[in-house]
């Protein structure tokens, strides 16, 4: 049933956007999402590169979408010494190894509702790759649709692509965020964490290693937990539903947006939804709460009044 909904949503999108060209061929180009059906058909297209970014280790190795290649988020996409995304040089080595060209269509997918795949998409976009898409519903949906997995390694010739410098337009730093807080710029900040993290009832979800020593949220931030943008089956809601959801929270794209969460990964999901699907001007604040909440002297709203170290 949900598959029908997506299909009709994709159709509506194609028709809405459309000139009278073949809707089928255009759909993937127009939409930042691809369906399992499309991906299965196009998995052998040399212009399509499929990349899995999953949180759980061993998932990729035990079975991945045929022709997919693996990116390990905690080593491949970050600088392992400084707190930062992978350097231009490191990322270039990675995409060359994956055989990705500038005009390749990069389809990312992963476990956990594409969290880390969306984070990967943010990094690919930031390094100047235009055709970056998510497999709608990720691993979960692919499996639910009973599509095949493969354990063999994709044989891909390395590319000689040159990666452009990191595009700062997609990323917000601490200074940008504190400017918003000080009313120096007219930007909407969206906190996509759970309501309990936002209110300051808890410092972080249970089991999270990285913490801030203050609870609460950035003053003025609106709370729309990322999961509200997702259907039960892991697919992203339709454009209309998304517009309604965010408009109800006061986010309509009329102002630039900054999204954040705890460490910047979950917020990539909302970044993807708002910028790639709704076309809003969105920056991801990857320092997120572990940077802001740990910074000395910045204002914090803590409705719950939880005190660090206190009883």
């Amino acid at each position, binding site marked *: 049933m949900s598959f029908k909904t997506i299909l009709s949503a994709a159709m509506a999108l194609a028709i809405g956007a459309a000139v009278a060209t073949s809707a089928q061929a255009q759909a993937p180009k127009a939409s930042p999402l691809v369906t399992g059906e499309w991906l299965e058909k196009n998995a052998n297209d040399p212009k399509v590169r499929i990349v899995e970014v999953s949180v759980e*280790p*061993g998932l*990729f*190795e*035990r079975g991945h979408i045929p022709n997919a290649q693996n990116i*390990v988020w905690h080593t491949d996409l970050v600088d392992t010494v400084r707190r930062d995304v992978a350097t231009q040089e490191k990322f270039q080595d990675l995409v060359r190894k994956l055989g990705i060209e500038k005009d390749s269509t990069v389809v990312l997918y992963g476990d956990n509702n594409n969290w880390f795949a969306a984070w990967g998409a943010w990094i690919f976009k930031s390094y100047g790759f235009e055709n970056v898409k998510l497999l709608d519903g990720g691993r979960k949906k692919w499996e639910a649709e009973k599509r095949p997995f493969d*354990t*063999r*390694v994709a044989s891909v010739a390395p590319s000689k692509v040159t990666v452009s410098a990191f595009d700062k337009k997609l990323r917000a730093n601490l200074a940008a965020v504190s400017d918003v807080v000080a009313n120096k710029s007219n930007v909407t900040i969206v906190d996509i964490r759970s309501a309990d993290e936002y209110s300051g009832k808890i410092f972080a979800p*249970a*089991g999270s*290693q990285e913490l801030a020593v203050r609870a609460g949220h950035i003053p003025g931030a609106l709370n729309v937990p990322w999961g509200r943008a997702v259907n039960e089956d892991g697919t992203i809601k339709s454009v209309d539903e998304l517009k309604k959801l965010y408009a109800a929270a006061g986010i309509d794209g009329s102002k630039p947006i900054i999204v954040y969460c705890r460490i910047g990964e979950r917020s990539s999901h909302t970044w993807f939804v708002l910028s790639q699907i709704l076309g809003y001007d969105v920056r991801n604040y990857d320092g997120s709460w572990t940077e802001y909440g740990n910074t000395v002297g910045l204002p914090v709203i803590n409705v719950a009044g939880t005190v660090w170290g206190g009883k």
Partner: protein
Amino acid sequence: MTTTLQKTERETPGASPASFALSRFGWRGAVSAALLVALLFVAYALHGAGQAGLSLSLIFGAAFGIVLQRSRFCFFCNFREWYDDGDARGLIGIIVALAVGVVGYTVVFGSWLPDASTGRLPPDAFIGPVSYVLVLAGLAFGAGMAISGSCVSAHLYRLGEGSPTSPFALIGTVVGFILGFLSWNTLYLGAVAEAPSVWLPRWLGYAGALLAALVVLAAVAWLLSLRARNTVSSPAHDDQWRKIFVERWPAWIGGAIVGVLGTAAYLRVGPLGVTAEIGGRARQAGTALGIVPQRLEGLDTLRGCITVVRDALLSNNGVFIIALVVAAFAAAFTAGQFKPSWPSGGQITRGLTGGVLLGWGAMTGLGCTVGTFLSGVSAGALSGWIFGAAIFASVAATLFVGRRVGLLSKPTA
């Protein structure tokens, strides 16, 4: 030897599997068959509920339990049979398990990581840090085996045989785990943090590591045979059913099945191991009681049997262990080897003391004879070999000293 079976031996086998089991093995066979069917049904239901991992873990656990019980795949007993009676067959069975496991893992690795030299380690394999802590862990674990009479996996299948010692050994293991958590931060910062996790294929290549492992295993088998004395083999007879369901399986067959099972489990769910759930629950209990430190340095980043505290009621490893015990019981029950008895004071003491050592060793060694040793050696981890060597050295030393001072019973002639 049981006689119940011989009474029914001449009856005509029934037409349906159930009546066949009933006619051959009486009501005990029927109970065991019903238990196994129930396990399969749960596996089927779990799979239907989208829990493929749990479902497979259950099947692997049941298969492992049956093989352990039927072939007495017990690291300690097999060693003692050789040590006391010069019967090397059990130890050769372990060597066969390791050899099959190494071959199987190599096949899997080749598909997952075509190039072993990239510096990346294969996912979830038991490739642990090599330091003096690993040796200490092996020594403690070996002593625990000698004192309590088994390692953790064998205590689990013996639970299914109604062993009076095993429940106390497992309680001791939980206590030992908590003690391990208490000493962990010191050990980690003192040695483990800087210890290298040596993966042999990275240095020798897949072919080199495979060859080296097989050569070492062959050499050990040859050394064992030097000491082996003539052993009386059980009289041969033609009753195949009896050979399968009542008599002890030849150790090498058990070993070969364990090797295949280890490979299949690694391919589909994760490496074989029996202490992750015990460790996870011990940590949960210790944290709830406020005695285990909130932060265990580096532990969640290391590979091994010890995993993060999970909130889930059922983990893969938990299901694996429950199925192991249930299936071992079913196997023992059919064979008339389920013999529960009241524990004696000595059994309680030895179980608890040995169990504490097993638990401490399994925590600080990041696994047990199945995880760190069997799955580790299969995975080409240096840590597996070192842990194994420390365990068996310690078993020998503990038996020798324990018998000298009269704390452990001497071999029955």
